[in-house]
C-alpha cells in the first residue's frame, strides 16, 4: 500500500511536471512550429500590407508630406481641414448618392438575372457566361462602350432609343444631375454578373424539399419565391448588400475614365478625390486623413447593416 502510495505520489508529481512542461511556451512553440510555418505567409502579408500600412496611414495623416520632401508633423490639422473643405463635402454627398442608387438596384437586377439563368434550359451556361463577361472586362473597354452609348447628342445610342419612345435626348455625362446616374447605370451593368453568380450559388443551395413541401401546401410560383426562396437567401442577401456597399464606397474607375470627376465635381467620389489629393496636389497627409475618414464611414455602414439586417457569424 505504502509502496503503491509513494508510487502514486511520484506518478502525480511526474504528471504535474509533465503538464507544466506541456504548458511551457517553448514546448508549445516546438509542438506547433509546423502550424506557424503554414500560416506564416498570411501573417507576413497581413503584417506588411495591412497592419504596417494602417499604422503608416495613421502616422501620415498627422503629417504634411508630398512624397518627396521631409514629413512635417501637423497634429490633427489634416482632420480639422476637412471641416471646411467644400469639395470633400461634395465628394462625400456624391458617394452616398451613388450608394443609394447602386446597391439596392444592382442587388435586385442581379437577383432577377440569377433567377432567370437558374432554369434548366438548353444554352443557359452560355447566358451565364455572357452576363458575367463585363465583370472580367477592363474598365477602359467598358468606358469606351459607355461613352458611345452616352453620346450627348440626339444621334447617341441611348438618346436614339429614348427618342423612339418619345423622350427628349439627354446630355448624360454633361448634365450635373444625370452624370452620376449615368455612371451608376454603367456600374450596375458591369457588375451585375458578379452578383448574379453569388445569387445563383444561393439559389442552388435552397433544398428542393422545401419547394416540394410548399407546393403540396398549394403555394404558387410567387408564394414559393416570397416564402421559400427569399428567406433562404437571407445570408446571401446580407453578404451581397454588404460587399456592394463597401464596393460603392470605393468607386473610382468610372469617374477616372469617363468624367474626371466632372462636370463641376458632380461625379467626384471620395476615393477619386483622395487620389486627386495624393497624386494631383501631392497632399499625402491630407489624403491619408481622408482615407481614414472613409474607412470609418465604411465601418459604421457595415455595423449598421450588421445590426439591422441580423448579420452574425452563424449566417456564413
Amino acid at each position, binding site marked *: 500500500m505504502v509502496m503503491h502510495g509513494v508510487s502514486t505520489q511520484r506518478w502525480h508529481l511526474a504528471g504535474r511536471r509533465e503538464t507544466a512542461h506541456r504548458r511551457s511556451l517553448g514546448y508549445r512553440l516546438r509542438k506547433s512550429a509546423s502550424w506557424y510555418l503554414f500560416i506564416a505567409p498570411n501573417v507576413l502579408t497581413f503584417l506588411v500590407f495591412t497592419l504596417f500600412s494602417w499604422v503608416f496611414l495613421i502616422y501620415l495623416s498627422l503629417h504634411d508630406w508630398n512624397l518627396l520632401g521631409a514629413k512635417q508633423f501637423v497634429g490633427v490639422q489634416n482632420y480639422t481641414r476637412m471641416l471646411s473643405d467644400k469639395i470633400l463635402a461634395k465628394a462625400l454627398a456624391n458617394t452616398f448618392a451613388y450608394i443609394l442608387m447602386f446597391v439596392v438596384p444592382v442587388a435586385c437586377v442581379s437577383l432577377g438575372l440569377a433567377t432567370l439563368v437558374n432554369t434548366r434550359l438548353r444554352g443557359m451556361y452560355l447566358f451565364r457566361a455572357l452576363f458575367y463577361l463585363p465583370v472580367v472586362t477592363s474598365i*477602359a473597354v467598358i468606358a469606351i462602350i459607355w461613352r458611345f452609348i452616352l453620346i450627348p447628342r440626339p444621334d447617341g445610342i441611348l438618346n436614339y432609343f429614348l427618342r423612339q419612345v418619345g423622350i427628349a435626348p439627354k446630355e448624360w455625362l*454633361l448634365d450635373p444631375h444625370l452624370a452620376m446616374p449615368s455612371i451608376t447605370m454603367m456600374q450596375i451593368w458591369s457588375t451585375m454578373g458578379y452578383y448574379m453568380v453569388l445569387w445563383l450559388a444561393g439559389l442552388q443551395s435552397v433544398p428542393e424539399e422545401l419547394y416540394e413541401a410548399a407546393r403540396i401546401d398549394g403555394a404558387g410560383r410567387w408564394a414559393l419565391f416570397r416564402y421559400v426562396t427569399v428567406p433562404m437567401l437571407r445570408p446571401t442577401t446580407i453578404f451581397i448588400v454588404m460587399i456592394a456597399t463597401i464596393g460603392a464606397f470605393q468607386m473610382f474607375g468610372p469617374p477616372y475614365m469617363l*468624367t*474626371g470627376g466632372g462636370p*463641376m465635381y458632380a461625379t467626384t467620389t471620395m476615393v477619386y478625390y483622395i487620389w486627386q489629393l495624393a497624386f494631383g496636389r501631392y497632399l499625402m497627409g491630407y489624403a491619408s486623413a481622408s482615407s481614414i475618414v472613409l474607412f470609418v464611414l465604411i465601418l459604421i455602414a457595415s455595423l449598421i447593416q450588421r445590426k439591422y439586417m441580423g448579420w452574425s457569424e452563424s449566417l456564413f
Partner: protein
Amino acid sequence: MASGKRITRRQVLRIAGAAGGTAALAACGATPTPQVVEKVVTQIVAATPEVVKETVVVQQTVEKVVQQTVVVEKAVTPAPSDISGQVRLWVFPMTDNDQDTIWTPLNNRFKQAYPKIEVSLELLPWAGRREKMLTAYAAGQQPDIAYVNTDTLSLFGTNDVLAPLDDVIPSEVWDDLQGNLQAGLMWEGKRLMFPTLLIGTGYLYNKKLFSEIGWDPEKPPLTWDDIRKLGADSKAKGYFMTSWNTTNWGDNWITPLWQAGGNVYSKDLTKVQLTSDAAHETLQFMVDLFQNGWVPKEGAVGTEQEASAVAPTNYWITGKQTLSDVGNPNITTNTRAQAKDLEFGFVPVWKNKRQTQLGGAGCWGMFKNSKAPKAAEAWLLWMIAPEQQGFYGSVTKFAPPRKSAWQYWAAEADPKKFVEIRLQYLEMNQDSSYFWQEGKITCAPQFQAAVLGMKTVDQALSDAQTDLQKIVDDWNAKRKKS
C-alpha cells in the same frame, strides 16, 4: 523605303578615313571623358557634312541611319571608358515597340562605348507614371535617370530631388538647344532637366472639307477671328471645327491664354492672374467653341488623357471635322495611316495679340541620390549627343531639341514640316513648369461650369482664381518656412 541610291565604297572610305584619323589622334592622348568623345564625334560630322548628309538622305529608314552612324562611331570611339556601374533607367513608351526599335539598338551602341556600364532599362506604361515615380522615390527605389516632363519641375525642384545639370553638361551643349526652351528647365537658377524631345502640338486641316465649306483649301486659318469664322462655317455645313477639352491645361488653356496676351502665374510665382482681360477673353473663346457647337460637347468633361483614350469617335479621321484634334507631329503619320484619302494641310500657330505656343520637352532628369552617379552622367552625356537625339527623334517622330541633332533626324517630311512651321513660336515659362497639375485640377471644374452655362465667365474665373491662389499662397508659405 530607300530611294534606291546606295552609298558608294568611296564614301565609306572617306568616312572611315576621317573617323579613323581622329580615333588615332584621340588614342594618343589621355583617355577622354565622355564630353570629349562627344565633341570628337561632332567635329567629324562637322568636318564632313556632305558625307553625313548624304548617308542620311540616301538611307530613308531609321535602322539604316543607325547603321551608318555606327560606322562613324565605331571608328571614332576611343578606348573603352573606365567608368563602371549599373544605371537604372526609367522610360515611357513612344512607339508600339520601344524595346526593339529604340532601346535595343541604343543599348548595343552604348555598350560599345562603355562596356563596363550596365544599363538596366525599365519601360513603364504612361498610365499612373506620376504615381509610380513618386512612390518609388518615397520608397528609395527611384531610378538613376528617368524620362521626366517639365510639368514636374516644380515638384522635383522644391524637394531637391534632381541633380543640377549645369556642371554635368557643357555650356556649348546647352547653347545648342532649339528656341526658347531653357526657362522651362530652370529651378532657382539651376537647370535640372535636359530635353530629349520637343513637344510642339498643333492642328492639321482637311482640304476637301475646306473646299466644301467655301474656304480656300490652300489658306489655313491664322487668327482667332479666322478660327471663329471657320467654326461658324463648319457648323453651318454640319461639321465640327476641332475638338476641345476643359482639362487640357496646356493646349486648350495656356496656349490660347498666351496668345491673348496673358499668363497664369506672375513671374515671381506669387500671383495667379486668372481675372485678367486675357483670361476673360480666353475662357469666352472656349465657351463660344462649346456653346456654338463648333467642337463636340463631350470634350467638356473627362480627363484629357483618359477621355481621349476612350473617345467614342475620331471625328477628324472620319472626315467630320475641318481641323484635326490638337496633336503631336505623329498626327500627320497617323492620319496618313488611318485615313489614306484625307488630304491635309498644316495649320500655322494661331495668332491673337501674340502668335505663340506652349512648347514642352520630354527630358532626362538625373536623381540626386543615384548609386552610380558617374555611370549615370556618362549615359546621360552619351544619350544627349546629336546622333542619339537624332535617332530617338527619328523613331518617335518627335523633333530633337538640339540644333545639331537635326541632321540625324530622319523623320518623314510631314512630321518635319509640322515641327518646322511652329518651332520659332514655341515658348516655355513659369506656366509650363509650375503648378501644372494643381492648375489643371483646380480650374477644369470652373471651365466646365462656364462652358455648360452654370456660371458666367467672370464667376468661373473668379472662383478659379480664389482656389488656385490659395494653393500658390500655401506653397509660398511653406517655402518661406523651409
